[in-house]
């Protein structure tokens, strides 16, 4: 209880909640308890109002017009690039490519870098806890190239089998594509070590930061990964925003992806030349508004401070883990020593879908199912889990509501 009080005092959750209008909503006649933050986070007023302000005051196409609105919109868009650069600790602003989200960023690397640098007989290491979006793009390219996608096994506690990783990492390995924090288990993977080992044999590393960017301080230079991806909507930002980080030399060596406006230097029917980074990979009119507002989300997070958020969420995680473990028949899937504030669990004799429906009836939003990690569910021999995931606005009272809701639901179901 000591740590609980201390972490609650870290910042004023009540005033933070005031920034998120949706949290005042009623669902099925009860106050919303939103515990599906790993799927997407809610948006603060800074983002909601920021979007309105963009469209009301300075909407224009960017990088083209010389009129004032175009200049303002371009400046805001590029300011967002600087914000992302700072947020993940990149060395250069042109290493930040805006995408629709993590999925598009991974596909960009698959269709450009992997298509050029992965060949027949090569291997791409992923982990057994990857989201489908960090498996399928590699399978598509591997099939095209005659390469193989090999999973690093996951141990019973939800950590990676690092011995197997060492064994699987060979001179055939061209890429290691690994999730920083698992969306299903919460496991934080030792990405810095993985990068170090992969670089020894000359393999590149892509880190899927979809679940880490919101919870952990990120320093891509310290991790030394070659690529890093994340989605804006999981960091309190708008859907349809996100970024790919790539080391400059790599991005320069990669072939272009989508062709179109903005990504070219000169076009003629004899020879077309391409624009420099980052525009080379940003063909067409991008998602300007949402990308502009992504900065407001990152500013919001920075305003509170990643360290504080992390500490607060770790308090929630410990409290919830303790409370859930008291529930008879409940088993937490994923007990890694280092976790983000995500708890997946199964209850003996109870289907996750039934729990999800009954909890929803009490206004409690959790995620049930395989969480887009089917191989991981197969690994644990379960069809899916119930997952509660916390954010900086989650309260201890909401965790109490979850526990009470679960107890009642389980009683009804058994």
């Amino acid at each position, binding site marked *: 209880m000591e740590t609980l009080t201390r972490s609650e005092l870290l910042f004023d959750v009540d005033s933070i909640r005031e920034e998120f209008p949706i949290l005042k909503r009623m669902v*099925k006649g009860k106050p919303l308890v939103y515990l599906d933050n790993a799927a997407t986070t809610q948006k603060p007023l800074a983002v909601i109002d920021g979007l309105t302000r963009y469209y009301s005051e300075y909407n224009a196409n960017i990088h083209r017009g010389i009129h004032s609105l175009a200049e303002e919109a371009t400046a805001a868009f590029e300011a967002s690039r600087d914000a992302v650069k700072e947020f993940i600790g990149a060395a250069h602003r042109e290493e930040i490519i805006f995408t629709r989200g993590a999925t598009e960023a991974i596909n960009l690397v698959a269709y450009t870098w992997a298509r050029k640098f992965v060949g027949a007989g090569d291997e791409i290491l992923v982990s057994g806890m990857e989201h489908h979006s960090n498996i399928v793009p590699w399978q598509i390219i591997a099939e095209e190239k005659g390469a193989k996608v090999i999973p690093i096994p996951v141990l019973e506690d939800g950590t990676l089998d690092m011995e197997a990783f060492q064994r699987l990492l060979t001179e055939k390995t061209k890429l290691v594509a690994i999730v920083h924090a698992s969306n299903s288990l919460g496991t934080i993977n030792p990405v810095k070590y993985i990068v170090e080992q992969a670089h020894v044999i000359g393999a590149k590393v892509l880190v899927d930061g979809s679940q880490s960017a919101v919870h952990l301080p990120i320093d891509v230079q310290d991790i030394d990964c070659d690529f890093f991806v994340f989605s804006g909507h999981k960091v309190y930002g708008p859907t349809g925003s996100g970024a790919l980080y790539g080391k400059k030399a790599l991005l320069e060596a990669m072939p272009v992806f989508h062709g179109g406006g903005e990504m070219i230097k000169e076009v003629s029917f004899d020879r077309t030349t391409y624009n420099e980074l980052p525009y080379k990979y940003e063909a067409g009119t991008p998602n300007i508004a949402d990308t502009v507002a992504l900065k407001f989300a990152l500013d919001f997070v920075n305003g509170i401070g990643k360290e504080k958020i992390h500490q607060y969420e770790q308090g929630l995680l410990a409290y919830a883990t303790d409370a859930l473990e008291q529930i008879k028949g409940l088993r937490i899937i994923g007990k890694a020593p280092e976790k983000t504030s995500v708890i997946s669990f199964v209850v003996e004799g109870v289907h996750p*879908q*039934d729990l999800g429906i*009954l909890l*929803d009836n009490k206004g409690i939003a959790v995620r049930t199912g395989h969480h887009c990690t089917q191989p991981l569910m197969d690994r644990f021999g379960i069809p899916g889990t119930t997952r509660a995931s916390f954010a900086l606005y989650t309260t201890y009272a909401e965790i109490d509501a979850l526990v009470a809701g679960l107890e009642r639901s389980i009683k*009804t179901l058994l």
Partner: protein
Amino acid sequence: MTARPSIEELEEEIVENFSLFDSWDEKYEYIIDLGKKLPALEDEHKKDDNKVRGCQSTVWLVAAYKDGLVEFKADSDAVIVKGLISMLIQVLSGHTPDEIIQAKLGFIDRIGMTTHLAQTRSNGLAAMVKQMKNFALAFKLQNESAKH
């Protein structure tokens, strides 16, 4: 044969039962109870061929055709879904293929199921209804080709 209630009459019974409940808690308790009471499907029927696609949970559905009437049996690993199937069976089982094909099944909407269950789950319900109607259609076609 005289006392065979129509699909509409059976639907009406369910709607009346539901009208007794004040809250969704009670409705779910009732559905869960139906699910628990629906006899489990024999293991031999729990194979991939009998699975209904489109549900987060696994649903197995089998149908038999006897004396011009279709009989359904089903099971699920999730009890609320099983309760929903139980209602569908209650309404549709023991009817002719034509009756089943033409059934409007307005009761699902009238008891509030379509709006209360999230889209993904009511899609599961829709998949079950479709599968049951497909069975009825298959029996009807079988019937007609046997006559010729």
